């Protein structure tokens, strides 16, 4: 995917997250679609790519959020950073590590956001973190799985179309 395509996908994720219907929030938790997209980019690219997309995603969310300045930025940077570090330790004999990356990234992102809010004077934030984190982790994993399946389906369609057009020629 091109850089422009990735940016459009991230913008779409931010917009969807901001307009997510109240009725479709499991346990009152909005899916962190922007974080899921940033984690996906971080897993696919290197540290530089992760840093860049985390900055873009976090800044976009900060523009729409009522949280203290740079909370989402720091949160996304932490999530992408942890995912990148964990991905560096991935080897062929540890294929399961890739499954642990999204939960690790989400936990890191929420922990840093909680710390940022705590430092801003909100001591009650840890209750909110603990209440929302399990559902948030599940939703990020589900979003990544859904995105991966959608990508695989689109690739298959493209391959089939290419094969058909080759056959016609």
């Amino acid at each position: 995917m091109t850089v422009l395509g990735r940016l459009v996908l991230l913008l779409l994720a931010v917009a969807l997250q901001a307009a997510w219907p109240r009725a479709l929030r499991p346990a009152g938790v909005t899916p962190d679609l922007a974080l899921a997209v940033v984690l996906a980019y971080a897993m696919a690219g290197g540290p530089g790519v992760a840093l860049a997309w985390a900055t873009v995603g976090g800044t976009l969310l900060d523009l729409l959020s009522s949280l203290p300045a740079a909370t989402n930025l720091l949160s996304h940077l932490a999530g992408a950073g942890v995912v990148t570090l964990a991905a560096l330790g991935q080897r062929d004999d540890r294929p399961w590590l890739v499954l642990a990356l999204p939960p690790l990234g989400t936990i890191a992102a929420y922990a840093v956001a909680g710390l940022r809010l705590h430092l801003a004077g909100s001591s009650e934030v840890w209750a909110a973190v603990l209440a929302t984190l399990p559902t948030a982790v599940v939703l990020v994993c589900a979003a990544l799985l859904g995105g991966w399946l959608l990508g695989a389906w689109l690739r298959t369609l493209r391959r089939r179309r290419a094969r058909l057009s080759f056959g016609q020629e």
Partner: protein
Amino acid sequence: MRLRGPGRGRHGRRWLIVALVAAVIAVQLPVLRGPADALREAFVPATRLLTDLGRAVDAPLASWRAGEDLQAENARLRAENARLEADNARLAELERQNAFLLAALGFKQEYAQLTFVTAEVVGFEPSNLARALTINRGHEDGVRPGTVVVAPRGVVGQVTAVTPRSATVLLLTDPRSAVDARAQESGARGVVAGLGRPDLLVMRYVRQEEFLSLGERVSTSGLGGVFPRGLPVGYVGYVQRRDVDALQEAYLEPAVDYTHLAQVLVLRSDAPGPPRGP
């Protein structure tokens, strides 16, 4: 050479008239009634066949016509259905608005000292660690940071950021929110804070000597001068009281359903001081 038959010329016409008159008379004669009936009987299978044939042709034609009519009727009914659905949606929206305005009127009568403007909720906070919403009233409508926002059922929150035509309202359920409150029956005082959950508030710093009862209404105390006194905050759902603690805590069910907020009331900043509690 042309032959003159009975059907041609003046003589022909005369013969034809004579024959017709004779036939009419003959049919009336009782003597000839038997052969006439026999002839009529002989025609019955033919007429039946023709009638059946006519019906056979008629049935598909009628069906085709009925189909056309049904299609037209179907299209008309679909259009009617779409119009009724639109009307229904509009009426449901009007009903919702009416219910809100009735509730707002009740609120206005109960808190006559307060002046407010209605606002529509146009957005929600995208982050899970904050509970906030965006309303369609801003600086141009007299909304300022710190302005109190309520619903007919109780306190919604406080404005934290304002643009010319919109404002961000930090909900009472946000972990950063806190309001001084008082229980209606026991008179217990405490600070109600959000826990980041839409269905739960906590009332902290309640003295051990106070006895909160379940279901007791908790309202704003008016202390601090931000929230007017007597606005409903929530209802006591659970009390955590341990002898070793100096203070007790109560968990409240919010008075306002924060997940279904569509319209709110923004208290005008030019309102007079804290009103008399209900």
